[in-house]
């Protein structure tokens, strides 16, 4: 794609990440996440930030919501043609924005609420395929959010500017995650910012994956093609594969992505558990994510924080009443929750899991 170097090349970046969840599913204003991420401006360099919000489209919650950015006018026609072929477009509109001079030029941003009439038995796989096809085939179009009752908002700029641009304080969500980026070159492409999303998964990620080549080629076996060349994309697909398609729980996913060392496995006393951990490493070796990372992954029911196996990137968690906080820095939590009930450093490879409570009744 023309003029979008970071779409064709992998750009390592350092970052700040933060996530806040109300475990009872009570929505709260985007103001909170904005304060949290803006207390970590140091961790970014103004070249990318974004937000993911869950529960923001309650009236249209049964429809797939695609957020699409267009770099040129014909892209929009092509993409819409494609969408109309495969989906029933229930509603579409420009994504509401406010003019922020420092961000210009901005791409055309549009959202579509879709019904997958001919999605077949596995509607989610159909949606993934559709997103990948648009992103691969339709020049200048990029689907950056594709879940239900959730949305991702991102672009090239500081989090305060991006937050203002997308009018983040006007949304109310029960899970918010946010990202502040420090890429190692100067990307001009908005799609390269985080969060990265597929279906209702969103990922904010701080890290550089040394096992990128291995992970990417492993994912291709399962039909995931990394079109963005970002580490975060790999992370999102791995979660989708392991949780949605292979049915693993988050603790097990932690044991796959940041697997315990063999020396630790040997010390596990329970034989059944030892066998399980060994089997996971044997089968899922190519899914081990090596290199430093701290990641906050969310879907409509969960928010999960995870570190690499030797904790090479910071991650702090805290809880207060119904709220779970996960962030790169304690400062990002304290600024919105002065006096948490509990605050801790998650151990390397041990997931911090926030689950929506009303899920199992």
């Amino acid at each position, binding site marked *: 794609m023309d003029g979008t170097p970071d779409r064709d090349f*992998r750009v390592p970046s350092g970052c700040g990440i933060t996530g806040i969840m109300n475990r009872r599913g009570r929505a709260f204003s985007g103001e909170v996440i904005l304060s949290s991420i803006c207390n970590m401006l140091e961790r970014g360099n103004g070249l990318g930030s974004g937000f993911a919000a869950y529960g923001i489209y309650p009236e249209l919650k049964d429809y797939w919501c695609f957020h699409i950015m267009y770099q040129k006018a014909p892209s929009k026609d092509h993409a819409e043609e494609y969408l109309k072929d495969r989906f029933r477009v229930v509603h579409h509109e420009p994504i509401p924005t406010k003019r922020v001079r420092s961000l210009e030029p901005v791409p055309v941003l549009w959202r579509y609420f879709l019904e997958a009439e001919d999605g077949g038995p596995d509607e989610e796989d159909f949606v993934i395929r559709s997103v990948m096809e648009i992103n691969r085939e339709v020049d200048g179009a990029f689907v950056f959010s594709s879940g239900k009752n959730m949305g991702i908002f991102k672009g090239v700029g500081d989090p305060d500017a991006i937050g203002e641009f997308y009018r983040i304080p006007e949304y109310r969500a029960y899970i918010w995650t946010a990202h502040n980026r420090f890429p190692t070159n100067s990307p001009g492409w908005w799609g390269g910012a985080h969060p990265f999303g597929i279906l209702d998964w969103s990922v904010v990620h701080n890290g550089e994956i040394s096992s990128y080549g291995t992970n990417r080629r492993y994912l291709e076996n399962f039909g995931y093609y990394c079109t963005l060349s970002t580490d975060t994309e790999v992370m999102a697909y791995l979660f989708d594969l392991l949780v949605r398609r292979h049915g693993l729980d988050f603790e097990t996913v932690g044991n796959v992505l940041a697997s315990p060392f063999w020396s630790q496995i040997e010390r596990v006393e329970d034989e059944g558990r030892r066998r399980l951990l060994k089997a996971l490493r*044997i089968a899922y070796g190519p899914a081990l994510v090596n290199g430093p990372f701290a990641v906050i992954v969310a879907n409509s029911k969960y928010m999960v924080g995870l570190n690499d196996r030797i904790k090479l990137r910071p991650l702090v968690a805290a809880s207060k009443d119904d709220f779970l906080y996960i962030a790169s820095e304690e400062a990002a939590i304290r600024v919105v929750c002065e006096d948490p009930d509990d605050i801790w450093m998650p151990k390397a490879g041990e997931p911090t899991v926030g689950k929506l409570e009303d899920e199992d009744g």
Partner: protein
Amino acid sequence: MAKAKYRPEFIVQRDDEKCIRCQVCVRMCSNDVHTYYPETDTVISESSRCVGCHFCEDLCPTGAITICRSEPQIKENYHWSGTEVYNIIKQADSGGVLLTGMGCDRPYKDYFGHMVLNASQVTNPSIDPLREPMELKTFIGGKPEVVVIKKSSEPELATQIPPQLELETPIMFSAMSYGSISLNACKSLAKAACDFGTCWNTGEGGLHRDLLPYAHRAIVQVASGRFGVNKEYLDAGCAIEIKIGQGAKPGIGGHLPGEKVPEEVSRTRMIPEGTDALSPAPHHDIYSIEDLKQLIFALKEATRYEKPVGVKIAAVHNVAPIASGIVRAGADFVVIDGIRGGTGAAPTVIRNNVGIPIELAIAVVDRRLREEGIRNRASIIAAGGFRSSADVVKAIALGADAVYIGTAALIALGCHLCQKCYTGKCNWGIATQDPYLTKRLNPEIGARRAYNLLRAWSLEIKEMLGGMGINAIESLRGNREQLRGVGLNEVELELLGIKHAGEAW
């Protein structure tokens, strides 16, 4: 007509002032190069018999002997090298096929030498293997695509993991039969493999009773001659390897001359003493892929599906589809042996001209298996001329699960690559059955040296991994992002699946 003399390949230089007439060279050389004349108290060396194994040079207590290469001084000719000319002279004399030992020595492009590795800087911390865990543990065998976990009170494993070889390092000793090498050489490698936690390979030589203590780490080979194959043999090993081909001599069989079949070899191979052990070029029960499948499952049935069964082939033009067929035929691992792979004996013209470089073979096989979605069903073991830990790392980054080393292991035991294995006169006691020669190789010392080699390479691999910011070998496997080509053209880069040096991610 006048007959051309063979020009010596080496000149034996003796410093007469240093020589103390101890005659160790006279007693030790199996090629009878040195002769002592008591009348004149002199040692005369017949250079034309010297094979360049450097044994006498290394043994001489005063350093009196130097073995120098000697090029036949025919008129310089780019097209007709001395070697080519003298090969023709030899063939005009004998009317026979020229034989040689070890791997191809022709100057084909060395792809390992045209690839460089990555390291972390700033954006990603490198990991110090002296301070942090660094894992080389490797499993050979088919892997399930999905692990299913039963949810009871405690999560429980519900997926049956196929049989695996568990290795402490991704390096194994490749197939070298008892017969082609001495029992002491076999013992050295077998013991080193057991001590280190990796595997050795019986080759087509059967399993001598003295090697039984090391059988739990032995990959037992079933080759076209079926030598030494019986129920106990199959049960004894930790894995079974069906040998279809070998990198040094793709498409042709094996021939262990009767002189190398004394009593012990005869018992182990289950053939009469002194008879030639002929391995046919093909397996005569495998004329196609479906026949291979039958043999794979016959062996799995015979061993109750308790151990991995793999197939070894030489890297040839069609290696990727062949490997794919082998995996679909049920193999748990595929061994690919490249053009540099060694041998105890092969026709020179075959060794030097048939097959393809292992680097390209790994790359295309790994890619093909992934494209077909069957990469998890079998491990890839690469073989053929690995000279250093860097070659191993590059092979794994291209997609191999583990490598076999043969030549490097023999060098650790003393081999100086004289390429005369087929004569059975190996002065180092490796490629010979002559008891006078084999006793020179002490299996305890040999095992320690082979172990040291595994240890040294493993330490170096850990250093390289740490530099890349990786702390488990599985994150290197197929990770071609960590490789860059230097001086490779577009086709080569495309086949290897790597970018050129200077290109970023």
